[in-house]
């Protein structure tokens, strides 16, 4: 494994990608909105906390009570229940950003025929794929973590109570942001590589690849409907499932990303 080659690829990808407005826009605005929305929600529900004195734990879906610690008031528990819906939005960041970067990077190289001279250098296809994957997923993971950090840091300023903060900075969310996020980034990059090998327009590649968000939306609606409650157990099973998905996707990505394949089969 030649780390200099991998670094060169990452450097090249970033030099190119950050000159692309579409990509930059996605990288900045989407996480920003996903950070601001839950803050706004927490702020307003916090304001009304006083009026919610009458809210008892009975008003929170029974399945969710397990997520509330015993020292939470009914109102706090309700707030935790609401903010939990936004966790899934946060989890879309490491899917959408890598998909956007990888789609532009791979379809772009395809249409300008710049992959062939690249493949004629001593770099191995695995190093090239790894470089491209890291270039697409590292910014997403970074942006995901930073926006979560900002989110948590803003909570006390908005008067969010300690037990709610403790919940948000607790195991369920941390598992989601720190572990599930990167796992989802890996899967979505490889899916995008697969899709990009078949289409010639980065936007098409992007749109098809973001279908990967469907399961997350599924989870979101299931939670809204009260069918599923996202707690540590659910998150751990999700991570377990994601590891399996990653293995499959990395296999798919590496099998499609081979010299001869790229030069003769990619259309």
């Amino acid at each position, binding site marked *: 494994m030649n780390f200099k080659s991998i670094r060169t690829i990452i450097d090249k990808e970033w030099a190119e990608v950050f000159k692309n407005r579409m990509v930059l826009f996605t990288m900045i605005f989407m996480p920003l909105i996903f950070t601001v929305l839950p803050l706004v929600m927490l702020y307003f529900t916090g304001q009304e906390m006083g009026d919610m004195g009458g809210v008892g734990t009975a008003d929170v879906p029974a399945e969710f009570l397990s997520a509330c610690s015993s020292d939470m008031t009914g109102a706090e528990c309700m707030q935790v229940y609401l903010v939990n819906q936004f966790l899934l939005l946060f989890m879309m960041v490491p899917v959408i950003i890598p998909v956007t970067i990888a789609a532009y990077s791979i379809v772009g190289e395809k249409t*300008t025929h*710049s992959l062939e001279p690249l493949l004629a250098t001593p770099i191995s296809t695995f190093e090239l794929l790894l470089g491209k994957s890291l270039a697409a997923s590292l910014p997403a993971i970074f942006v995901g973590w930073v926006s979560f950090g900002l989110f948590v840091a803003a909570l006390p300023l908005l008067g969010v109570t300690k037990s709610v903060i403790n919940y948000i900075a607790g195991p369920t969310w941390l598992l989601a942001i720190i572990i599930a996020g990167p796992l989802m980034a890996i899967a979505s990059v490889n899916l995008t590589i697969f899709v990009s090998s078949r289409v010639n327009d980065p936007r098409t590649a992007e749109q098809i690849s973001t279908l990967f968000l469907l399961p997350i939306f599924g989870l979101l609606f299931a939670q809204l409907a009260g069918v599923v409650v996202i707690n540590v157990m659910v998150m751990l099973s999700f991570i377990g499932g994601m590891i399996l998905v990653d293995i499959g996707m990395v296999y798919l990505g590496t099998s499609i990303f081979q010299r001869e394949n790229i030069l003769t089969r990619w259309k």
Partner: protein
Amino acid sequence: MIEAKALTKIFEIKKGDDIPAVVDLNLSIAQGEVFGFLGPNGAGKTTTVRMLTSLIGPTSGQAWVNGFEVGKQDQKIRRTVGVLTEHPGLYERLSAFKNLMIYANLHDVENAEKQVEKYLHMLGLWSRRDDPAGSFSKGMRQKLAIARALLHEPQVLFLDEPTSGLDPEAARLVRSFIEELGDQGRTIFLCTHNLNEADRLCNRIGIFKSRLIAVDTPANLRQEIYGRKVVFHLRTLDPAWKNSIENIEGVRDVQLVDQKFVVGMEDPEGLNPKIIRLLVENGADLLFVGELRHSLEDIYLQTLEEEGEIKDEL
């Protein structure tokens, strides 16, 4: 330096629907040779280059480049050859300098910046080093792509149609640069359908259309196909002289064209004085004498035509 044994590539589109792009290619190219690979569109030139630079694997056969075997020592091959691909494939948003730096680093070139600077100067792109490659003209792009292929100082160079699509001026610049590279003793495999280019630059030429039809020096190809011919241009011509010329030993054939005799022979240096004497003694006014040179284009078209005829007979 470059060696191919029964090298074959067959593309399988669907089951039973095969495209034989390269069939049974045997080649041996010596160090320092500039080899022209001449063939029409779709002949399989690019496919051959891709196999020899270990980008795609042959269906059968073997090849060696720089002593490394294709398919077995691929990385060593890629480390030691330079390739100008059919499309320049530059990073259009990045500067010329950055484009080259990426490749210098991938080849792990020592003193990468110095080397990049050297080639930007050499190809006259230094003043434009910070401009994005996307803003370059076709000729400049091609030059940048050639520079990219040279950064690691490869001894074997594959150039896939280096002057296609360039205006005469730009093509001339690129050509003289290739000449220079040849003079430096590099082995060059040059794909082209520009026949004058091949004639001027190459020590040997292979005429290729899925199969190698002919390989030789440009001079020998001319002779092989047409033999040597001398034209005797007279003021007035007496057809009776034809017979006398034919009777001279060593003359292969004589044709009559307008006021000219076109005489085929192996040894013009020996026979021309005899023929001239004979004509003058017979009272002919000799205006011009000259060797008939066939352009490479004639040879190329003739070769492909013959090949076609042979195929039709089969």
